[in-house]
């Protein structure tokens, strides 16, 4: 556990970069506080991390051999979307000698928003799902809502950027988790997450672990994602609080979160008026990659694109 003894502070945000000394200690239990109180560190055990990593590796090896119902697919995504699954060459409607996927490619779908990669909705009969509405709910059935941000959009980026460490179901069991010490947070643990303010979550995503005196293994994403993208990810994390591993497709598509908004906290809608937020954001921006003071290349802006909406224009369907 010697590697866990990291001394990491805000000094990392200065021009000195990240430094540590082997004599300094920063014990694991002290790292984990929430709401000013010490709490149990919400991470998986080393054994669990190794198991998750081995499982992922096996899936890669299986893929090489063509096992697992996916030709060369991106399981578990293809479970939902059909991406990577190929139908029989002779299937009805398929041109002889060519391949058609079961995912609906090549067929018109109403509304461009439904073409997002991970939200492609078509109920495969093999899953025993006859009610297509179950699938449709995936992109709009959140509980609860989060002001000014859209969990569906955040989910897209979570699955692109975050799953390598935080895992498919946000349990901190991504394939790279076993290589990291300290291990990535389990993001679904309500006893911990309910005490973390939105501002803290925004700060750690935008500025990385060093911005909140935590592990340097959490990179800063502020030079990859715009502020609204980060709020969307926060909304997704909030929507997955205490959500258990699903036992059915229906459960998987209808995550029931226990999150309750924290009094006095900022959210995407109120951030622009919050002095605390602005101070924190200025500190984060001051040392961010890709900024050029005195030019158009300053950060924190909003650009419409990639289904990104301004906080005031976000409307999210909430499950009753």
């Amino acid at each position: 556990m010697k590697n866990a003894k990291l001394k990491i502070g805000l000094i990392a945000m200065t021009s000195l970069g990240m430094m540590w000394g082997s004599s300094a200690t920063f014990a694991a239990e002290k790292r984990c506080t929430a709401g000013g109180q010490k709490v149990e560190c919400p991470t998986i055990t080393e054994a669990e991390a190794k198991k998750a990593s081995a499982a992922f590796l096996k899936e890669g090896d299986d893929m090489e051999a063509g096992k697992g119902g996916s030709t060369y697919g991106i399981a578990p995504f293809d479970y939902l979307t059909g991406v990577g699954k190929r139908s029989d060459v002779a299937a009805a409607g398929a041109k002889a000698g060519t391949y058609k996927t079961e995912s609906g490619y090549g067929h018109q779908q109403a509304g461009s928003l439904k073409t997002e990669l991970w939200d492609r909705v078509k109920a495969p009969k093999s899953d025993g799902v006859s009610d297509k509405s179950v699938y449709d709910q995936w992109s709009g059935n959140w509980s609860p809502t989060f002001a000014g941000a859209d969990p569906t959009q955040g989910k897209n980026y979570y699955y692109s950027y975050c799953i390598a460490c935080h895992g498919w179901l946000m349990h901190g069991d991504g394939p790279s988790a076993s290589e990291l010490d300290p291990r990535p947070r389990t993001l679904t643990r309500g006893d911990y997450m309910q005490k973390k303010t939105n501002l803290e979550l925004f700060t750690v995503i935008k500025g990385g672990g060093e911005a909140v005196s935590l592990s340097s293994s959490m990179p800063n994403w502020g030079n990859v994602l715009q502020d609204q993208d980060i709020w969307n990810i926060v909304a997704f994390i909030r929507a997955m609080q205490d959500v258990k591993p699903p036992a059915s497709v229906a459960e998987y598509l209808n995550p029931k979160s226990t999150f309750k908004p924290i009094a006095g906290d900022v959210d995407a809608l109120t951030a622009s008026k919050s002095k605390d937020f602005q101070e924190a954001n200025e500190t984060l921006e001051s040392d961010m990659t890709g900024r050029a003071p005195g030019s158009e290349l300053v950060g924190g802006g909003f650009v419409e694109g990639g289904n990104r909406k301004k906080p005031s224009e976000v409307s999210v369907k909430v499950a009753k």
Partner: protein
Amino acid sequence: MQGKYKFLMVSALSASCLMSGAVNAADKSLAIPGWQMAVPDGKDTPTIDPMILYSSGGVDGKMAVIGIPSFKTYRHIDCGVDTHEISFGGSNKGNKNGTPDGKYVYLNDKGANTVCEFDLQTGYLARVIALPFPFGVHHIAMSTDGKNMFATGEYSGKMLKMDIKSGKTEVIDWGPSPSAPDYIDATRNGKYVFAGNYYHSTVGVFSTSPFKLIKEIPVGKNPHGTDINPESTMVAVSDKLSATMTIIDVDKLAVKKVLPTCAGPLHSVMDVYNKDGGSYRAGIDSPDGLTSKYVYESCFVADANVKVSYAKLEVVDEIPTHYRTGHISISPDNSYVLSLNKFSTGLFSPTGIVFPVNFEMWDAREKSPTYGKTLRIMPVDGEPHNAKGLMAYLIKDWTKGQAEDGGLITGRTDLLDPPHRALSKRYFIPKETTAPGVKVVDGVKEVHMKAFSYGYIPRQVRVNKGDKVRLFATNIDKASGITKNPDVTMGLTIYGPYGQRSNMDLPRGVTGVHEFTAEIAGEYEIFCTHFCGPLHLEMRAAFFVDDPKKGPSNLAVGDYDAAQKLPGLLEEGQLTVSERVKGL
């Protein structure tokens, strides 16, 4: 496991008319382990190729010259560190192959922030044009008159327009940050430049003169390919994370249609026909009035190429590829689509710690009995980005003393290759487990980095000017991110003056070490040089070299004039140093 896989591939290949039978030699050679097939006598591929493919070598820093349809590699020509986009001199009229005039082909080096100019007739590197810093060139596009080149500054959020002959360059900002302009194309009427920006999730429209941003058009998430049809009426945008193709109407500068295409779309290429409906022959046919029928899009995650009809604006076919197609190219006669695949899992014999990527050629002739079938698949060197083809008749035969009649060269021609092998100290050590960060050991700044899909830890590294740096980089992936490729190799390069000194393959199980002195201040982006997955481009970090006299470096503070001269790599006079100008 692999045996079964190879069997599938052989089945696919033997369906082609070029490789059928496979009885004679194979039967006699059962003693050779892994023997798969042999080409029957007299049925080998032609040795004279009517078309030539010029391919950027990516991380090997070279340009490969490959025959079509033989799919045999003729030669590799050195350029630099990490090469990306091929663009023929002449005119951009036509499809992505343009209208080559047979004089030069250009190749941008993302690792060194340069553009290499190759003389097509001598087959040598003719000139290296050093672009201004900070920039971080991702792709280049030829102008319609062939005089200017446009380029995207992926690592700085900037765009440039360059006068190719003089090297004079105009650079403009495209904010706000984060901003990553990557793929670029220019309309065939000289009016606009379109470029995707994967952080903004938009396509920027630039007027060519004056060179400025006039509009941003919102598209799907993290767009990549931004490709204009020969008629200059439509732009096909590959919305990488949205599984769609956004078609932009060039006249209205607005989205015309968003169509679902495939998982992980990356690039598009289209066919091109002359006025009479035949293949467009550059130099013979008029470059005006060219048309296109289909646009082919590469699908990284779906392992496929989709064929989209321009008339219907919908997918009309999907061709499986092997595997993980990145770029896509088309033969100049529209017969073959070349799928530039990033992963070759189970396809070839291992020849080292890094598995080769491959090129796959499938038959795009609708009336051919082998339509849609893979005709050839070959392992290739490096990690090629784009490739473009020209008709072989544009290259004169100089091989038998024909140059004695004159006309090959007109003046002194420096032999510049290989220009980028200096000051490079790199080695492997067994996989280390040191935590990520920076520490000082015996006066050397030791930087420990982890590479995962998709990013680096730490994402920002700061050292001081003059520091001796020892950079340890370890690939911690088990299988690449969301796509689970088992044979993932990462890469790490600090672009610019540290390019070749930091250029490192990161296969699993070892740690790559680079040693150099950080003598040039500035902010230089670190990027992945092996195509590791759909978010390969987003796999970035930043290397800051701070000059204590000037304060922390950023895109406005750094020794950027010194950086542009790429010290130690080329002698004075061998490098065209682009002069920055306002208004071009």
